[in-house]
């Protein structure tokens, strides 16, 4: 009996504490918020870490193209399974994203086209295919009978609707992805910074690419339901870009990216729960980008530091001239 009272006192105090710093305890303790927040935070953490590699490899726009390209896979998976089951839709997204990735690599290798142009063409063609298939099943006598309202959530994401099973799914993808990242940490490091050296010590760059694409693709596919095909790419690259402002060490960058991802996921989810009608994905991205811009200003390599350094240099210079 006394322990319950004790817990209540503690929780009340905790609630007061939270209220004092401007957070609403009601919302923070609600089941929906906990589920959504867990989902987005885990996703943003993993995406931030995996995406850092893409950023360092200079391929940040590939994520955008793959995100768009996973849309037709979702519709095809729906047409095959005739249900809105998260797992099968995710597998569909992974397959079509992979196909798009392979085509992008193929064209990039076998033509004089710039990667930019290849990405733009593939992105629009695949998303266009998604639109075609979506309009095809809408009025279709067979597919039209199955409720398909959830399908458009995959374009813009609808984090508010995710359930416990989706969080499980995110965990199932997140844990192996992180494991791969940690197990192959050294290999990834060499692969990113000196691909030629990596080859010379017998590290297969094909294997590394396959691993990288595998984890990137699965992170994108799980993220689609939360953030949508259009915006998933920023989950991958913005934390990485932010982290790169603060450190030059790969391990530090990974950790900072993870922190940036999870913190912005928390704040973004909170904001979207407080103000009704705000979508979670876009909120998180605005917070993330805000952190990125702040970092560009105040980090040790940032604009402010550069400006101060230059001013100090000029001051010293003028002093040494006039003294």
């Amino acid at each position, binding site marked *: 009996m006394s322990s319950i009272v004790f817990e209540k006192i503690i929780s009340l105090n905790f609630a007061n504490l939270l209220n004092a710093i401007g957070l609403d305890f009601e919302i923070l303790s609600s089941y929906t918020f906990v589920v959504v927040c867990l989902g987005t935070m885990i996703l943003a953490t993993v995406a931030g870490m995996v995406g850092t590699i893409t950023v360092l490899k200079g391929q940040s726009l590939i994520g955008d193209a793959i995100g768009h390209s996973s849309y037709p896979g979702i519709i095809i998976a729906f047409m095959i399974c005739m249900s809105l089951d998260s797992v099968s839709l995710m597998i569909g997204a992974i397959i079509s994203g992979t196909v798009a990735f392979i085509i992008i690599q193929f064209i990039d290798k076998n033509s004089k086209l*710039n990667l930019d*142009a290849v990405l733009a063409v593939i992105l629009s063609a695949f998303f266009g295919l998604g639109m075609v298939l979506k309009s095809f099943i809408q009025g279709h006598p067979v597919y039209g009978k199955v409720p398909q309202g959830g399908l458009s959530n995959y374009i813009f994401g609808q984090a508010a609707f995710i359930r416990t099973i989706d969080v499980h799914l995110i965990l199932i993808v997140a844990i192996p992805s992180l494991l791969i990242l940690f197990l192959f940490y050294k290999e990834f490091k060499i692969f990113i910074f000196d691909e030629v050296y990596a080859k010379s010590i017998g590290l297969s760059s094909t294997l590394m690419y396959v691993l990288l694409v595998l984890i990137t693709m699965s992170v994108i596919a799980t993220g689609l339901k939360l953030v949508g095909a259009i915006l998933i790419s920023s989950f991958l690259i913005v934390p990485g870009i932010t982290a790169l402002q603060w450190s030059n060490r790969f391990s530090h960058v990974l950790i900072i990216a993870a922190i940036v991802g999870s913190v912005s996921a928390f704040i973004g989810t909170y904001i979207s729960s407080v103000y009704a009608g705000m979508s979670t994905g876009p909120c998180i991205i605005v917070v993330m980008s805000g952190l990125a811009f702040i970092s560009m200003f105040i980090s040790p390599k940032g604009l402010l530091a550069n400006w101060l350094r230059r001013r100090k240099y000029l001051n010293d210079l003028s002093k040494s001239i006039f003294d």
Partner: protein
Amino acid sequence: MIYPSLFLTKMSDFLNYNQQMLLTLIITGIACSILGCFLVLNKLSMLTDALSHSILLGIVLAYFVTKDLNSPLLLIGASIFGVFTVYAIGLLSKTRLVKSDDAVGIIFPLFFSLAVILISTFARNVHLDTDIVLMGQVIMIPLNTMTVFGVELPKALFYMLIILLINLIFVSVFLKELKVSSFDPEFATLAGFSSGFLFYALMTLTSFTAVAAFDAVGAILVIALFVGPAASAYMLTKSLKKMLLVSTVFSTVNSISGFYLAIAFNVSISGMIAVITGLTTFMTVLLNRQGIITAIYLRHKNRKEFRLDLLIMHLGNHEDQQDAELELGFTTIKDHLYWDQETVERRLNRLIDQGFVQRNHERKIYCLTEKGRLRYDMIKVDYGM
């Protein structure tokens, strides 16, 4: 027979809805692909992706000012915002804190997110659907009409005609400058004109075109129209003028075939045109002069020709020799070429059909004809022997 009245001519009198849609799509495609050539040449293709997404924020902001979704000011506001996006991306990559790809990747999702948030919180009851922005509403083109000089025509068609005209004038006036700054920006600066000015002029027009086009065809098809035909033309041509021409042809073919396929299967028109654009670009990758299928075909053809040349050489070398019966005999020739009997006969038959080789039945050997002799001498010269 319908007599159009003197003062008010309706476009629907002489073109049905489908034809009006198709005409608008073709005009839009050409307007986009002309600028697209320069975007592809300057490696700016992904900027169209950024533009077409961030325009949404421009439209929302302009809507807050004008309070009218049909106002032309909305289009102008959105276009200016598009240019601002490009400027912001340029500014960000100029700080050297991020790479230019990263700058694109960070700016446009931010703008798009802001737009989605603004729409969902402040503009809920406005007819401003994020879905429509992405996918377009080609079907609605003929229903949204306006009257210009006594002619009632679809609004989208009128806007796109004006944009096409502006683009054509811009490209033809600045063709030389655009060419130089695309292929040799350093020389352009030395020659005394600012490639920065051209860049922003190009981006302004791109932004205007994208804004005018997106309402009818959607943001995704805009990307395809800008980049697809230009990319295909880039692989096929070696001069800028030809590239411009070929890209318009590609764009028109894509629009027409995509449109009719979509009508036939009753599916999204802009989606179908985007798919067809992707397909034609992919086919061009495979089939152009340096393409992979062309390479395989040429390799195969060369190998075949080389084998026949080799055969003629063999015949020519041994014809006058003592061991001709041994080397060139009907049944023994195969031992010296290490081919099987069937292959030898097939290849020799081809040479006989072409008139290079004849059968000498007295000596039971194959030997060269007069024509074959000439060919033999030519091969010797060709291979440097």
